[in-house]
């Protein structure tokens, strides 16, 4: 007689050298290299890679991937709307909003009445450029921990944007150069500026143009944008300019009149980090959950187990232990299995 033992979640969602692998569905989630079948949580380069034979993600992320990798980089893309269930092998997959960037999703996997949520990157703050994070209760919740230390408490983004506007006002001869990632942060900063009543044209680096246009196509209104390359000499004084963070150190920046270098990132909350990045005006604006959001979320999802991935796993695991929640680092899951064999 076969005795039925309790199914362990790590038996059907495992860490392999190719990435996080769902055994009964035969697919990877955000694999770092090209694989046969991949589910993608969002379009950032450390999650979405080109060359998968088959990629499944939200329509917005699929659009972002096609924009970034060209049609050849996503030969067979399939889109799945938020909230729609799809059966893959013996697994049911559903994508729910993660609130990180446009199209970002949590992958909700169900197998033999066990539910694992792979959150990808997420935040809980209001963001007009993407659908808000959806709490999905589950047995196992896989959380990021990019800002998994109690020193990370992101201030209100509106207050940070007020600094940009103040800086612009008090330095009419200079331009304010805000360093932003091309996907997500750029569009969010633009929307925050608009929400603060700034309706003048915003100048953008060429690397941001395509994704800004893509956001517009998805119904995110960004207002008047102008290309820095087309600007006349003198036109950029007193203007707000957005560019990838590295551009400030690039020869490209020489066309700007004595720029005030602002950097919008969650790391800016720690002064040594902000100085390292050469920020004169650090703006703590993050698309990742801060400490309070992370700790709130691991309570909200009511999971039996929390798996913590990329970032400062140790502190979040410590927090969970102090609150009677079972948690471990995801990278250790694979190693544990090896040791038990």
């Amino acid at each position: 007689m076969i005795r039925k033992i309790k199914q362990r979640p790590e038996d059907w969602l495992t860490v392999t050298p190719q990435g996080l692998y769902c055994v009964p569905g035969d697919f990877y989630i955000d694999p770092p290299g090209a694989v046969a079948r991949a589910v993608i949580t969002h379009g950032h380069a450390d999650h979405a890679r080109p060359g998968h034979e088959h990629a499944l993600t939200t329509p917005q992320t699929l659009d972002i991937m096609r924009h970034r990798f060209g049609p050849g980089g996503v030969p067979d893309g399939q889109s799945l709307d938020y909230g729609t269930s799809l059966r893959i092998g013996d697994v049911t997959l559903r994508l729910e909003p993660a609130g990180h960037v446009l199209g970002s999703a949590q992958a909700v996997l169900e197998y033999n009445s066990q539910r694992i949520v792979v959150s990808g990157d997420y935040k809980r703050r209001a963001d007009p450029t993407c659908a808000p994070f959806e709490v999905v209760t589950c047995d196992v919740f896989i959380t990021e921990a990019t800002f998994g230390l109690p020193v990370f408490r992101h201030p209100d983004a509106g207050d940070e944007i007020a600094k940009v506007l103040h800086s612009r006002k008090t330095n009419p001869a200079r331009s304010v150069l805000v360093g932003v990632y091309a996907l997500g942060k750029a569009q969010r900063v633009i929307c925050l500026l608009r929400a603060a009543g700034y309706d003048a044209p915003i100048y953008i680096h060429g690397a941001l143009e395509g994704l800004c246009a893509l956001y517009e196509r998805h119904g995110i209104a960004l207002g008047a944008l102008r290309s820095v390359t087309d600007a006349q000499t003198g036109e950029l004084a007193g203007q707000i300019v957005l560019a990838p963070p590295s551009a400030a150190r690039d020869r490209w920046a020489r066309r700007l009149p004595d720029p005030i270098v602002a950097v919008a990132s969650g790391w800016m909350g720690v002064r040594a980090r902000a100085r390292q990045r050469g920020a004169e005006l650090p703006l703590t604006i993050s698309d990742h959950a801060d400490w309070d959001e992370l700790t709130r979320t691991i309570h909200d999802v009511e999971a039996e187990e929390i798996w913590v991935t990329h970032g400062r796993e140790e502190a979040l695991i410590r927090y969970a232990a102090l609150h009677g929640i079972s948690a471990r680092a995801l990278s250790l899951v694979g190693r544990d299995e090896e040791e038990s064999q």
Partner: protein
Amino acid sequence: MKAFARLLDALAFQSARNGKLQLLQEYFATTPDPDRGYALAALAGDLKLRTAKPKLIRELVTERVDPELFRLSYDFVGDLAETAALMWPATEGHCDPDGSPGLTDIVEGLNRLTRSDTPEQIADWLDRMDATTRWGLLKLITGGLRVGVSARLAKTALAELGHVAVSEVEEVWHAFDPPYTEIFAWLEGRDPVPDISKAPTFRPLMLANPVDESELLAFDPTAYFAEWKWDGIRVQVVSQRDGNGTLQKRVYSRTGDDIGDTFPDILDGIDFEAVLDGELLVVRDGVVAPFNDLQQRLNRKRVDPKLLDTHPAHIRLYDMLVAAGEDLRDLPLRDRRVRLEDWFGKTQPTRFDLSPILDFSSWDALSKIRAGARDSGIEGLMIKQADSAYQAGRPRGPWFKWKRDPLLADAVLMYAQRGHGKRSSFYSDYTFGCWRQDSNGSDVLVPVGKAYFGFTDEELAQLDRWVRNNTTNRFGPVREVEPGLVFEVAFDSIHPSKRHKSGVAMRFPRIHRIRWDKPIEEADRLESLEALIE
């Protein structure tokens, strides 16, 4: 405290001097007394405050948050005040902007509290603050703001507030204590210039302009005094009786910082009433020691009694500003010199001597004297109009400095680093090296110095292009380049140094010429630099 913390935060991220000045002025203009005065004192390093030990801060935090989470956080942030400020638990509804304590409450509170009451009071303040304000408070009470503001810069901002010269602020500065309400009242036109006659204040120094021989030829040599420019640090000795008849003794640096505590040997030698201008040196048996020896006595919090013996301080006098309460600054130099010599002959103070006046009949003769100077204690010549009054600042004309010709070496560019501010997209800081033989007998370059000026904007653009096209390796903001470009480097002197791999350190190095034409093999060898050590 909130406004002061915001100021500190902004200053910490502002690397440009003008940007810092703008922030300081804005703060002084919009902050009421006495807060701004205490802020000024804190920035100028003149705020006497009962400080809190790092241990106390650590205890306060770990009473409130898990010690393990604190350890992990501190490990990441690397700064105790910042870690504590960021992770201090927010007290709901407690942190209203009006309820947060002011800088004055904090300064006065700390000086009133007993040691045992202090921790509880600090915790209460922290509860009522936001993260940036907590950081500012913790920086203030743990000592060392480190936001890149010198006392001089703070005073410059203050002077601009009152539209006066910074020398005027420096002159009254030492007559008052924090929170300097008298100084603010004067600068804002509410009070006349304060009376400082009874205070041992700093008299702003008279400085000289650089000159070369061709410029000197236009002047009449008999109208000038010449003396050696000694290679120490310029100081002003102030000794006068206060209202109670007590002798107040000060040794001020060029920028008006009181460095007397570092030089008790000098203070002990003062038993007179005068204000004197001179050069602080280390002198052994009448011989001036290299600048490096003096360097070891500077910027020390605690005086090392051994160094007092091995590195005895001495002041070589140039000028006399006040004699027995009489201000001599409006007299011509020749009369001041007579007063100085008379006074010196009568007083014979220990640890002081006179800088001799050199005898010369023509500029050519003086040039020969200058060329013959090989003493390591001599930086060049001072040439002063005999009828010049003692004026604050660097007036054009009356005083010149004619430095010794710089030493030159050909060195090879090895590393380049991006600059700051306007130069942040340019590789503008250059590390260069000379040849030496390694243990295998082959020639290798070893860094001998670093310079970031001496070239035009146009040359900077060319250098930047060269660096970008010849990069072999990157380390953060630094690029290693393929050896291929020779600089003719100028420097004032060169000294042995244990801190540098090459074993030598250049004083005041700058790029003299860019030798686009010169093959790197023809650059100097380390041995020829070592031969220049005096």
